[in-house]
Structure formats: C-alpha cells, structure tokens
C-alpha cells in the first residue's frame, strides 16, 4: 500500500508539473514574450500551490475521500485546461483572466495533494523517511515531466492531447486511491461515479481533440496580439512588437509596418505614374487601405473605387485609430468609395472606365482564389479599363514561387495585356513580384509622387531586371478548367516550407 501511494505520488507530481508547463507554453505561444509568460505562470502556480498547502490543514475527517475528490478535480480541470484556453483565445475576450484563474485553481488543488498524501502515509513510515521519500518522488516526477514535455509529449501528442492524457492519469490515481483506501472511504460509490464521469469527459475531449484542432484557429503569433476579430470571411489578427505592427489574415502575414511601404509603393506607383492622366482608379482587394493611401499620393487621381469582399476588414481599417493612421485615413477620404463585394462578380456588372487598376488579391493558394488569376479574369478587367489603362497585379514571389509568378505573367499576356514583370525586396516577405499590364510596351515614368520612401525614378528601371534565379521559366496559362497556377503554387510553397 505504501508503494502504491508513492507511485501515485509520482504520477501526481508529474501531472502537476505538466499542467504548469502547458499553461506556460500556451501563454507564450498565444501571447508572445516567453520570459514574461513563463515567469508569471510559474510564479502564480507556485503561489497557488502554497495556498493549497495552507488550505490542506482545514481538511479534517474524511481525508481519503477528500484526496480522491481533489484528484478527480485536478484531472478534470487540468485535463481540459489547454482546450479551455484555446477556446477562450479564439472565441472570447479576457484570455489572460481565464489563464490566471485556471493556473490559480489547478495550482491550489495540486498544492493540497502532497500534504494530504503525506498525512495518508503518516504512521506507515517514520517521519524522516516520510519526508525524504515523498520529496524525492515529487522531485523525480517533476524531472520526468520536464524532460517528457518538450521531447515527447508536445511533438507527438500536442498540447491539447497532453493535457487530456494527464487529466486521465490524475483520475486514474483517484481510482487507484479509491481501491487501496477503500476501508477509509465511506462514500466510495459516489466517488466511483465521479471518477467515471470525469474519465468520460476527458476521454470525450481526447477523442474530439482532432475535431477541435480542425475547427480551431491554426495560427499562433510571435508577438503580442493587440487585436483579434473573426469576420464572416476571415480571422483578422493584429500583433505588435515595439513599432512593428503586423496584420495576419487566417494566420498569413499581410504586412509589417516596418516595410509595408516598400510593397505598396512598388505595387502602385510604377503603373499609376506611367499613366499620363489617371483620374479614375480601381483597387481590387487591399481592404487595409494601404494601396489606397499610395494611390491618393498622386494628385491627378480624382476617384478611387476599392472593392474588397470583407466589410469587417474595410470597416476596421476605416475606424480603428491606429490602423486608419497607418493608411493615412485613406478609407475615409472623400475621393475613395469602398464597395464590399466579390471582385469577379462586381467587375462583371461594373461600368468600368478605369485608368488604372491595382489588383492586390491573396496568393493563389486555393482554387477559389485561383479564379481571380485566370485568363477570363484578366480579359474581363481589360474590358473594364478606359483607353490607355494600366493594371498592376501582385503576383507572389518570383524567387520562392518562380513558376507561379511567370504563370501569372503569361496568363495576363494571353488575355491580351502587354506585360511588364518586375520585383521588389520586402524584408518581411522576401523578394516579391508584380506584373504591369498595359496596352503598349511599358515605359518607366520620369516622375513619381512626392513623399516616397522606397522608389526613385533613378532606381525604378532596375526593378524590371530579373537576376538568373528569378528569370522567366516556361509555364502554362492559368485557365479556369485547368487552374495550373494553383498547382504550381502549392508545389512551390510546399518546398519552401519544408
């Protein structure tokens, strides 16, 4: 019986540390700033354990029953802690509050375990053996947990499953205690039922963790999350580290304030400034208003139509004080009209007459988006342009997705555009590519708007030069019935990510 209790103690100690590590790891991955998160989580946890130890003295009669109850509770709360935290982060406000409440609760319960176990073992061992054996086993359990957690548990089980599995172990200890201490437990039947219920709840969590994972937000961010919102179309997350604000849509980086000016200047001005009199400009995508900001730099532009699917996105960038500062209030500028619509459909019914169009869609990572890079799309866009109109298309990275980039260029050419491919270096993205479509062979403008930080008339022509590792490769035209681009893109980025 003594050995069984000591074995339980080992398991209990391991579980206790695992919950602490789960909370610390989650906090640092979700909130960033590892040092701060781990320090505060460990601090709060140890403090709560102290509270638990102190509270244990109030447990008088029914020691064994109380121990079993605590084991069941620790298993249930600790086991579900990771899932609860993920859910809170994804769907509710007050993540930190829930985090520390959970840490305090689990810590307090865990803090009661050892004193209670010691009292259960009292009389079975001499005091000096009792203290030495209990503390030895406790520290061994901690060592086991701290080695298993990073090397085995997280890589193979993931945080969610790890927590559930250890929750089940805790409940297992409760069941074991019920068995070996049955003489000291009057209400065994009720506790047995409690054990079974807790085990069932944890097993359900374990079985459903795959579903949970499928539904959950897959992206966890390096920096502090200052804003997060789920719109009807996407998950918008804004992170900040000092002056660097980053926008993520569904976990994909859209811009970093450190270098977005490079991207947006390169996207807009080579085409816009090459037009002799651009008055009406169309922006497709670009709900962050940053391309609009660049377009509005050109004093010749009188009218901007921005078409973006997600009202959540354009609304946020029109109203949020920090974010509308980034785009210079472009989305509230009287020259800009914002339309929330599907670009392809909107374009089909649009009257057109645009002098320039800035096409800033997400990369062609699926077949729905791939249609916005197809020959029929570029043909339709051509019909909507005024005479002499130019378009500029974000065309993914010619370095990482070389064939994809040249596929987009070839598709535009197939649709009747005279193309001018070019590229720019954006540190947070790497080498990025764009294609201008025009009626006549493109000639770089001799003037650019005031206030640019990246583009100069002197260096602009150099963007149209492609070094050997990005130079043209043969690619199919991206047609709706073949969608060659999506297949290229998938294959190429897969290589980069590996």
């Amino acid at each position, binding site marked *: 019986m003594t050995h069984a209790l000591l074995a339980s103690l080992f398991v209990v100690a391991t579980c206790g540390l695992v919950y602490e590590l789960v909370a610390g790891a989650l906090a640092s991955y979700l909130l960033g700033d590892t040092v701060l998160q781990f320090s505060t989580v460990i601090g709060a946890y140890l403090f709560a354990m102290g509270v638990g130890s102190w509270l244990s003295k109030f447990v008088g009669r029914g020691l064994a029953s109380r121990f079993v109850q605590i084991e069941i509770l620790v298993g249930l709360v600790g086991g579900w802690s990771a899932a609860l935290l*993920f859910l809170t982060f994804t*769907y509710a406000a007050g993540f930190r509050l829930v985090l520390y409440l959970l840490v305090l609760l689990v810590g307090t319960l865990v803090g009661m375990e050892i004193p209670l176990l010691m009292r259960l073992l009292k009389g079975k061992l001499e005091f000096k053996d009792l203290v030495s054996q209990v503390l030895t086993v406790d520290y061994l359990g901690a060592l086991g947990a701290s080695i298993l957690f990073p090397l085995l548990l997280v890589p193979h089980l993931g945080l969610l499953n790890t927590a559930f599995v250890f929750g089940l172990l805790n409940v297992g200890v409760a069941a074991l205690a019920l068995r070996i201490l049955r003489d000291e437990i009057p209400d065994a039947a009720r506790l047995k039922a409690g054990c079974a219920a807790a085990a069932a709840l944890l097993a359900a969590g374990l079985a459903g963790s795959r579903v949970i*994972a499928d539904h959950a937000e*897959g992206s966890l961010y390096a920096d502090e999350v200052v804003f997060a919102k789920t719109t009807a179309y996407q998950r918008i997350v804004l992170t900040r580290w000092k002056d660097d604000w980053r926008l993520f849509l569904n976990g994909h*980086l*859209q811009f970093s304030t450190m270098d977005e000016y490079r991207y947006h200047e390169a996207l807009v001005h080579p085409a816009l400034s090459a037009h002799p009199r651009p008055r009406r400009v169309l922006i497709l995508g670009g709900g*962050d208003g940053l391309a609009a900001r660049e377009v509005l730099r050109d004093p010749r532009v009188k009218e901007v139509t921005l078409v973006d699917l997600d009202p959540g996105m354009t609304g946020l960038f029109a109203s949020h004080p920090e974010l509308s500062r980034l785009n210079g209030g472009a989305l509230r500028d009287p020259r800009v009209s914002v339309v929330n619509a*599907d670009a392809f459909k909107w374009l089909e019914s649009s009257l057109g007459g645009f002098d320039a169009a800035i096409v800033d869609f997400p990369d062609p990572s699926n*077949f729905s988006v791939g249609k916005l890079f197809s020959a029929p799309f570029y043909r339709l866009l051509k019909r909507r342009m005024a005479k002499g109109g130019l378009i500029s298309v974000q065309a993914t990275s010619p370095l990482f997705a070389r064939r994809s980039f040249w596929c987009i260029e070839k598709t535009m050419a197939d649709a009747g555009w005279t193309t001018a491919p070019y590229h720019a270096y954006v540190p947070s*993205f790497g080498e990025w590519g764009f294609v201008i479509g025009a009626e006549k062979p493109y000639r770089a403008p001799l003037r650019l708007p005031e206030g640019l930080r990246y583009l100069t008339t002197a260096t602009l022509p150099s963007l149209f030069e492609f070094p050997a590792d990005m130079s043209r490769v043969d690619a199919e035209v991206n047609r709706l019935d073949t969608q060659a681009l999506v297949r290229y893109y998938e294959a190429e980025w897969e290589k980069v990510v590996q």
Partner: protein
Amino acid sequence: MGESRPISRREFLGAGLAAAALAACARRPPLTGSLLGPSRERGHLLRSGRFPVAAREEKVPVVIVGGGAAGLSAAWELRRAGFDDFELLELEDRAGGNAAWGRNEVSAYPWGAHYLPVPGPHATELKVLLRELGVLTGADRWDERFLCHAPEERLFIHGRWQDGLFPSDAMSAEDRRQKERWDARVRALRAGRGKDGKPLFAIPMERSSSELAALDGLSMKAWLDREGFTSERLLWYLDYATRDDYGGTLDEVSAWAGLHYFAARAEGDDDRVLTWPEGNGWLVERLLERAGDRVRGGSVVMRVAPDGAGAVVDALDAASGAPRRLRARQVIVATPRFVAARLVPGVSAEGFEYAPWLTCNLTLEPPRDGRGAPPSWDNVLYKGEGLGYVDARHQDLSLDRRRTVWTYYRPLTGGPDARRREAFGWDWEKCRDLCLDDLSRAHPDLRERTTRLDAWLWGHGMVLPRPGFLFGARRRAALAPRGAVHFAHSDQSGLSLFEEAHYRGVMAARAVLSVLS
C-alpha cells in the same frame, strides 16, 4: 498583400488547437425540405384517357408537344429557319424536361442532366447552337467559363479523397494491366471507322457505323467477361459510368451502349465537359428565350391524331381545365415514348424501359472534408449507393464559399419496374435518409451542416439501352412519322443525352419544314 509562409510555431503546436465545442454549440434550424417530381396529377389525367373536347377548333400550322430538350430544339430550328407559326405545348408550368432546374438564395441547381461533354466532330447541329450561345467562340475555342473548372472529379476511397474517378489507390499489377488494356481499347474504338466509312461510335448515335451492331446483342458485363476484363476496380468504374449515363448496371445495358459512353466522346483525349450551376437547365433556358411566347406551359395534351392531311391536337389547360382543340398541318410529338404511346393512336411503347432516379439538392455549409484531393465539381464515393454529388457553386467565380448546394444523384437500379413501384411509396424522410446515409460516409457531419434537402423522384428518368434495343426493330419503328405526326426524343436514340434530344428535335423540325415548303 501576399501570404507569407506559415508561422513555424503553428506546426509546433500541431494538433493542439481548439474549438469544436463552439461550432457544435451554434444552434441550427432543423433540416427541412420537400419531395418533388414531375406533376403526377397531370400525368394521371393523361392516363385516365377521358377528357372534354373543345367545341371550337384553332388553326395552328405546327404544334410541338413537349418542352424538354428535344421539343425546344425543334422550336429553335424552326425559328432559325424563319418559321414562327407554331405553338409548343408543355405539360409542366415550366419547360425543361430532364434538364429541369431550381434556384434558392444560395445558388441555382440542377434536378436532372447537369453537363454536356464537349461535342465531337459529328454533333454539327449542336455546335451551331453552342456557337450561337457563345459557348463556342470565334476561333473554335470553348469559353472556359463554361468548361468545368478545375478540379473536376475526385473519388472517396479507403477513407480519403483521390484525384480523378478511376480508383487508382493501391492498384495491383493486374488492375494496372487491365486498365491500360481498357484505355487502349477505347482509344482504338474512338479512332475506328466501319467499312461504311462511318465512325464506330458517334454522337448523335445515328451517325455511327453499324459495323459493331452485334455488340448490342450482349450485355456490357458479358462483353467484359468475354474480353477478360475482371479487375474489381475497373468493373466498378465501368459500372459507375453506365449507371451515370444510362441509369443501368453493367448487366442491364448493352455492350454497344456501354462502349458508346467512352468511345463516342470528342476527338483525341478531349474529356472536358461543359457545365453550369443549373446544369443543362442553362441550355434549356437559352432555348426557352429563343422560343419566346410560342411556349405554352400548363398544357396537358390528351390526344394527337393524324387526320386527313394534318393532325388534331386535343389539350386541357391545367389551371382552368378548359379544353382546346388545335388543327395543325404538322405536329412534332417531343415526349418520351411511353407518353407518345398514350397520345397517338397506334403508337406502342413496348420495348422501351425506363430507369427511375432519385435526385436530391442539399443546401448546406461545407461540411468536414477529410484528407486528400480538394472539393471538386463531381465528388464520388467508391462503392457508394448513389453516384456522389455535384457542387452547384463549383463554376461560381466568387470567393464567398460559406454556403453551397450539392446535387445528389442515385439511379434506382435492379429492375426498373419493381424499383419504380417501390419508389412511389417513398416519402421525403425516406429520400432524405437514403441520401444522407450514403454521403455521410465521406462527410460525417453532413446532417448537421445541411439546412435544406429537397428530393425529386423521377419515375421514368432515362430510357434504358437494354441489350438488343439500340439495333432492334422497336427503336427503328419509333423513328418513322405517322402521317403528319413526327416524333422527336432522345428515346429514339435509346440514350438519354442532351445531344441526342437536340439532334432528334432538329431533325424533326427539318422534316416538318421540308413538308411545309
């Protein structure tokens, strides 16, 4: 702005993410829907055989009975020739026949035929139509908006989705050899010509050589046995194909018909198909626009009798019950043969068998999809009861994919008459369960994701090309006019295809025009 590479931490946490609970918590309205079908009351009116006769006779030079693909194609051909003096009488309020379609707040969707293979060299008349509709453009190129967008087809097998319909996952060497041999046979048949100089298999089938007529005498299964095709995968694939095109199993359809499915496609290896959210309903609507006010829906034609130099058509207005009598110089009966047999004295439908079908349209939020190939236009389950489902929004150009409509097809094989009688007893719940039970194997949460499910039972879905039917006397007999009454329907081809219906309609119109001139 472009997507950057996914964050590495994401992989670190891997499976450790959260949130099913929320999706499950969101309250959903209960699954609703209804059971639809061709108007049985109107059909039964016809069956009763008794009807009032109008006192007054209206003179209409040409009457077309039936507004499916054949009747509308006949109307199109008449108008193309500059002949406007006709009336098309359709039983249903809305014409369309087997290309019937519907629409809700999410999408248009088909109730029947939903695609058209890119026509080959012999479908001359059809190409004229498609050129007129802008589907075939100037430089003999198909407008890619109407070609089925990629990805076209996938198959759910062994718990995951694979690209394409042939079950190529874990094939044995023998499977592979037989598949290659089959492909080679099809290529040879596609290229082959008979001694009469005609292609071995053509669409329209009337333009095929009769060289391989003997193949019509045995079932597809018997032919496959004879040729040593035994691979389970290959046989499943071919059975899927004949159920898909004819509503019959390998045992039920003739070898000539089974081979025609593969060998009569367009030149070379062009297996592309044209499709629209509402399926061939799109074609029917364009034809309806062209027929204009010549179409009268809700007209129950009771009798078409050759009479002297012309014919007399008796009809009832479905809404008021008022009888009409039309005296026509020429009539085109563009109905299935089993209907024509009730309308025209002396016409028999003996030998014409029809496969019953169940079609369901599911309005849903895309359910969990499983591993492997991404959602495609045609999504088939290996050894499923039905033929899988088609996504009505596949051709859609918008990014908003929060809801869609799936069309589920299921031919009721295994003895048409027995199955038809059985299916007449089915209620909506039965149809719903047949559909959901079949598809849930690939999408376990389908039931929770579906907000509406409408079902349609086609008692006489498709003419069944039984062995001996295509080259037999009864089909031949159905081609000949009876006096001033001409016939036009894909039943005359024994193959329930839009191409055949169009061809029969155009030919009947031409025959009428030549008599009138």
